[in-house]
């Protein structure tokens, strides 16, 4: 009976961890999915925006003493939201001054396909941001420390005195906030006028222009919003995951795996894709040694891209 209880507990623990972690991955993926869905741009620097979100949250939290002012539950959330606002404007700047030079009509004259310049440019930005981060923030791992990071709620026990599930408090709060933001974004895109213009610009940029919609501006907003959301996700992760300036690399493949799995071009798909990746990652801790867990994500990603690039929910947006 004991063995069974242990296995059951492990499985339950892993599943809940998968959901908690997966929800934050889902939020990151939603940010990336928004950018790709509206603008068809692959932003290699998305991981670095995540990292900047983490640091912005840290500085907001400690600098404004949010832990004391607002308590351990609200403090980090507000910090993450502030980080989101800051990174929104950073994203706007990056789009207006850099990305517009390599997307759109200007690119058509150059040889080769149109999206390679974006890929390469965002790769360059990624290198700059990660390494500048090293210069300004130092290489010591940080977290946004609150008592919540190391305490957990116990649910159970279910079978006599055994089999409980422990929910790390910080992660649980992060879960709730992620879901809340994802839902808010969904309603924003679906219900508000700006959200609809974003969808229209994504659906048919030429027809949108005929309607008087400024497609470039729509792209700027989508990009900035996508960066902001990923930054907020970063801020939430920062409450329980130690980070340093190169942390973006750890997450960028997770983000792309999630977005591709859910179907590039679908924001809802990105959410479920991210959630699935989180579950896969946590489940892999049951069977794989630590170093291979990361490799497992890559292998899953490669399998998706090679076997079913359109993902589970998305439309086929490959261009030939």
């Amino acid at each position, binding site marked *: 009976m004991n063995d069974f209880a242990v296995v059951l507990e492990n499985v339950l623990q892993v599943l809940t961890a998968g959901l908690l972690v997966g929800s934050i991955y889902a939020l990151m993926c939603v940010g990336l999915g928004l950018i790709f869905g509206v603008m068809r741009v692959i932003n290699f620097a998305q991981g670095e925006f995540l990292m900047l979100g983490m640091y912005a949250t840290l500085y907001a939290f400690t600098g404004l003493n949010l832990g004391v002012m607002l308590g351990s539950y609200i403090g980090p959330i507000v910090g993450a939201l502030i980080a989101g606002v800051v990174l929104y404007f950073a994203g706007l700047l990056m789009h207006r001054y850099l990305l517009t*030079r390599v997307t759109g009509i200007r690119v058509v004259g150059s040889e080769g396909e149109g999206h390679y310049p974006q890929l390469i440019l965002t*790769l360059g930005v990624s290198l700059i941001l990660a390494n500048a981060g090293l210069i300004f923030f130092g290489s010591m791992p940080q977290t946004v420390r609150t008592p919540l990071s190391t305490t957990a709620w116990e649910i159970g026990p279910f079978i006599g005195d055994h089999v409980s599930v422990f929910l790390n408090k910080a992660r649980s709060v992060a879960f709730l906030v992620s879901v809340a933001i994802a839902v808010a974004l969904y309603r924003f895109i679906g219900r508000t006028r700006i959200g609809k213009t974003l969808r229209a610009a994504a659906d048919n940029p030429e027809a949108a222009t005929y309607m008087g919609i400024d497609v470039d501006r729509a792209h700027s907003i989508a990009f900035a919003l996508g960066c902001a959301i990923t930054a907020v996700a970063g801020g939430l992760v920062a409450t329980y995951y130690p980070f340093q300036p190169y942390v973006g690399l750890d997450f960028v493949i997770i983000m792309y795996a999630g977005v591709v799995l859910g179907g590039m071009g679908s924001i809802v798909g990105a959410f479920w894709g991210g959630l699935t990746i989180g579950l896969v990652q946590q489940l892999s801790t049951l069977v794989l040694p630590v170093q291979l867990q990361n490799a497992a994500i*890559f292998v899953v990603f490669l399998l998706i891209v*090679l076997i079913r690039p359109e993902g589970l929910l998305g439309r086929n947006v490959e261009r030939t």
Partner: protein
Amino acid sequence: MSGLRHGWGKPLAGIAAFAAAYLVVGLLVQNQYYQLMLTLVLVWAVMGLSWNVFSGYSGLISFGHASFFGLGAYTVTLLLVKFDITPWIGIPIGMVVGVIAGVVIGYPTFRLRGHYFALAMLAYPLALLYIFEWLGYQEVSLPMKREAPAAFMQFADHRVYVALALGLLVLAMLASLWVERSRFGLSLNALKQNEAAAEAAGIDTLAWKLKAIMISGAMAAAAGGFYAVVLLIVTPVTVFGMLTSAQALIVTLFGGVATLWGPVIGSLILIPLAEILHAELGHRIPGIQGVVFGLAIVLVMVLAPEGVLPRIRDRLARRSKPLAAAPQVDGPVAIAAAARRAPAGEVLLRVSNLSRAFGGLRAVQDVSFEVRKGEVLGIIGPNGAGKTTLFNLLNGFIRPDAGEVTFEGERLLGLKPNRICRLGIGRTFQIMRPFPRMTVLDNVLVGAFVSERDDDRAVAAARQALARVGLAARADSLASSLTTVELREMELARALASRPKVALLDETLAGLGSQEIDRLLATINSLASEGLTIVIIEHTMQAMVRLADRFVVLDHGAVLARGKPDEVTRDPKVIEAYLGKKWMANAQH
């Protein structure tokens, strides 16, 4: 820039001169730190050349060349550590590993397009990084072999390494030169510009991509293996990491993509810059290297996307006198217009009950017709009638839902476009994609590879094709200097260079003025009187009625009418399809 006809003399001399100069500098430098830098510059130049051979020439941007670099490094290292095999043998074995990796990575990944390809290539080295960490190879040092250092590629005098690296560079440059100057390079360039057109011209794009990645993988592995020998220590991050892939890319982008010297120049400028910054400021400002490389990429992409070298070259070229516009040569002698064509012969191409739908839209519905040898068949119909879809079906770009196409009795179903071209069906496209930086002859040359294995004879076939369309005088001009009608003639020549039996012409006359149309019509007529079978889609009815022997009229994807021009244009159904029902109703009064 490339061309089979160009001699190798100049570039070889350049390489020799560079190598000699570099060697002299290398021998003079005493400081070991600078010697190391000289070596590293060459290693990254080789890495850049490797990236260039694949991504630069083919246009498939790889963010994952670190896979090959790292595999080469680890092969050499592990062979030495575990089996005591000298790097003199280890590096060639590493190159073989690189080739195999190229095929293993390339074959499944080439089916992907655009950003999916880029993302997959990005994932490979990062996955390998984690795997090698798991295998326990976090840090592997190459052991010192005191008994016979030279036999294990270990030298006290670092200048030997500089010389060895130079040897590697020369080999890499020779390989690049060979790729660039042969039909290999032309084929890669063709598929970079327009993969569909290349396939239709008979180029087996998959085969060329695989060959390119194999060579590229070998070169990168060699660079990686040598890197391990020089640094004596290998970690997963340094050889499989993002910076490695990025460096290969940046060095080439900076110096000039798809050029022989680009990666070398880029390496000469960027690597010492990064190393010096790292050495001087690395303690106080860690990560300065990454920032510099990142800035280099961003600046290049924004200001000079094709590289610093080509940008400078363009500026200089603009200063010198522009190419004198060739005198307007009148089209071919106007025999053709009046020439009687031999009556049509046996059936060459038979289309039976071809159907294809896209979602709910039936683009082609149960279309059947025959094309007889020696005739000019016009496929006409109002907008949206399915004409281009029909051509795409004939050519192999899309598969029909039902029906069959046979050419000289052989079934074409399921054959790839390049295979169909080899069988004898040539094609031009609606949207022209000439290769602007190449000469007219080189543009046409890719079409000739199908019919000629020998390079010289391919050139002859290309020249012949140009003569047939009346462009012989412009063979050595750059394609960017041609007028629209000349570009159309060049497209035609490229299709002719494969010596097709049937030519599918897709809207060759669109957008031309009436004089230009006359000129092109004369050309097409003369081709037809030489015996070429032609199927042509055209909107410009004025021209078609003077050209075609027979028409097949399509409307909403189905055959509406067939027959001679004057019959068809009087057919009420056809008039109604073009001008509308009311017109017919009015016209009958």
